[in-house]
């Protein structure tokens, strides 16, 4: 029998959100791993040691103490003693709010760029627990995880978070949400939704198995992307009324042509409220 993979989970500069996100799936599969250390779950005492899989949660940053060590030195030591490194969450992948990522620092090269071959990036703020579940189990079973140019698993990050959004029909017909708190309308034009150009599968592999931000009326903030969090997260950046960022893979000319046509051909059904309250008209009169 093969021995269990040794798993070491270290928290760098983080909010622990990726750990708490991870707690939302059935953790009994961790029995197949030897958990050397985790910042919250019971494990052996922390020591610098070799591991088969090192999970780094959080960003790296100078002059930051962790478990009595300088954080950067600690991560370096653990990194080089690990066979595979999982950068978990946008902080560990790109730096996020708190610092620098391992392989990338926002859109430039990070401290561990030269060793990127042993790193698997799982961005997200937080990372979706099933994404990590997938990577850990693939590693355990010695299966090949196909990665993209940013070392992200293709099976998860070849999607956009727009795919599968329940508001897709509104996007198609260019019916824009004009106010928050309504199930109707697309959040792309006025409210900063980054779904059409954000790599993630949030609307395919749902959150907590039931929902996603755009389904709940909150725009996608692009939390899996290198520049998260951008400025003005609830507003769409436009140049002369034209969205500064357009769906991935389409030319601006093609997108403008298509959206102009869609806008000209009104979809009557989508311009009305889906469900009308009996006393809604009465309320408006008052």
């Amino acid at each position, binding site marked *: 029998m093969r021995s269990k993979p040794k798993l070491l989970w270290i928290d760098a500069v983080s909010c*622990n959100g990726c750990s708490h996100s991870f707690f939302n799936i059935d953790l009994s599969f961790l029995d197949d791993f030897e958990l050397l250390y985790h*910042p919250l779950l019971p494990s052996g005492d922390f020591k610098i040691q070799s591991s088969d899989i090192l999970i780094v949660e959080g960003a790296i940053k100078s002059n930051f*103490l962790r478990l009595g060590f300088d954080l950067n030195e600690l991560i370096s030591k653990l990194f080089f003693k690990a066979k595979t490194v999982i950068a978990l969450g946008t902080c560990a992948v790109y730096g996020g709010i708190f610092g620098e990522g391992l392989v990338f620092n926002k859109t430039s090269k990070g401290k561990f760029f030269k060793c990127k071959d042993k790193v698997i990036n799982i961005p997200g703020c937080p990372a979706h627990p099933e994404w990590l579940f997938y990577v850990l189990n693939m590693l355990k079973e010695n299966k090949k995880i196909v990665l993209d140019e940013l070392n992200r698993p293709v099976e998860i990050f070849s999607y956009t978070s727009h795919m599968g959004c329940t508001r897709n029909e509104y996007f198609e017909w260019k019916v824009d949400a004009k106010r928050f708190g309504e199930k109707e309308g697309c959040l792309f034009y006025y409210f900063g939704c980054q779904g059409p150009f954000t790599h993630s599968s949030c609307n395919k592999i749902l959150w907590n198995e039931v929902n996603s931000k755009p389904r*709940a009326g909150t725009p996608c903030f692009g939390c899996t992307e290198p520049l998260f969090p951008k*400025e003005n997260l609830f507003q769409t950046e436009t140049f002369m009324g034209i969205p500064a960022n357009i769906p991935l893979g389409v030319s601006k000319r093609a997108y403008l042509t298509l959206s102009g046509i869609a806008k000209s051909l009104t979809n009557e059904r989508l311009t009305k409220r889906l469900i009308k309250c009996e006393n809604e008209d009465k309320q408006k009169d008052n």
Partner: protein
Amino acid sequence: MKINKKIINKIEGEATLKIYGDKVIEFAEIEFWQYRGIEKYLQNRHYMDALVINPRVCGICGHSHLLATAKVIENAFGIKVSKKAEILREITTGLEIIQNHIKWFYVTLYPTLIQDKSLILKSLSITSFIAKIIAVIAGQFPHNSYIIPGGVTCDLTNLDILRVKEDLKKLQEKIDKIIDKNGDSNDLKRLFEKMDKNIGKGLNRFLVLGDNLYFKPTGDLTFVKEEKTKSLSKNALYKDEFFEVGPLARNLHHPLIKSVYENYQDSVYTRIFARLYEMHLILEKILNEIDKIDMCEPSFIDYTPRNSEGKIAIEAPRGSLIHSIEISDEKIKEYNIIVPTQFNLSNSTKEKPSPAQAALIKEDIKWSDFIFKCFDVCAVCNTH
């Protein structure tokens, strides 16, 4: 005198405890060394960005930071929200408190005395069930931003509400098995089999500043001041004194909790009991509120931003949480956060100790970890 310095981990983040004394704790200093700089990060950003950034203060209680952020902006602009939005907010933030308490009890506190992996897995299956209920309303948990100034972003159907209500009832059954309505808890009994219920008494001085859920403020947040310490966190004082905030402070009026308090004062046991029992009180409150939702009310009411300042407090899992903001041209000029851990785990002198310092002093050194953690330390919040 011997000084024993130890790093307390397996909490949210980590703290350093410097214990003076050999067997008995003469004095203890509490240090936090992981500053992250969220308040600075917010400066010059659009005020709405705070709704995305502030939840990232903390992975376990970020939703409370979201509520506080929306409320402080509403306070600055003078915005009112619909009853529907208010009830939904109470449900999701109330549920966050419950998941926090379960994780704290089984994942943080329990293993300091009893290692039982099955308990941890069982407790996490309950908290993930709670996260799912929150997600039906809020989109996801952790780290959603569905609470916004003026209301909430979601527009639920009756089916969603029915589902939430059914799940809340199921949750009630699950919580009954942790601690029942009479306050009986096998897991709590097991924890105290080898321990004195009377240890870890604090200052016996309590403070409640938030008014969400069923909580009633006992103080005025304008009297709260921050003070620098040797480490990277700040102390929080009320009228220049230290006070204990949290579940014990805000539930002292409840007959059952009051009777435990009368027997054991503000000991570790009372503190833990109050925290566990609070889950029932919150659940009762939100189950009562959910039937009052009028689906025809708007989820969001529009408003006009203006240059202004705001300051509010809410009751978060660990106690009173204060956010204050200064907005100019829709941008954040100043943002300040004071978290419950700053109140409970301030670092002061032997003569004027904070609640946690007072609770540690004169106790056996072997209980230091347990006493410290019974305050439900949030180091990541503390070092925002």
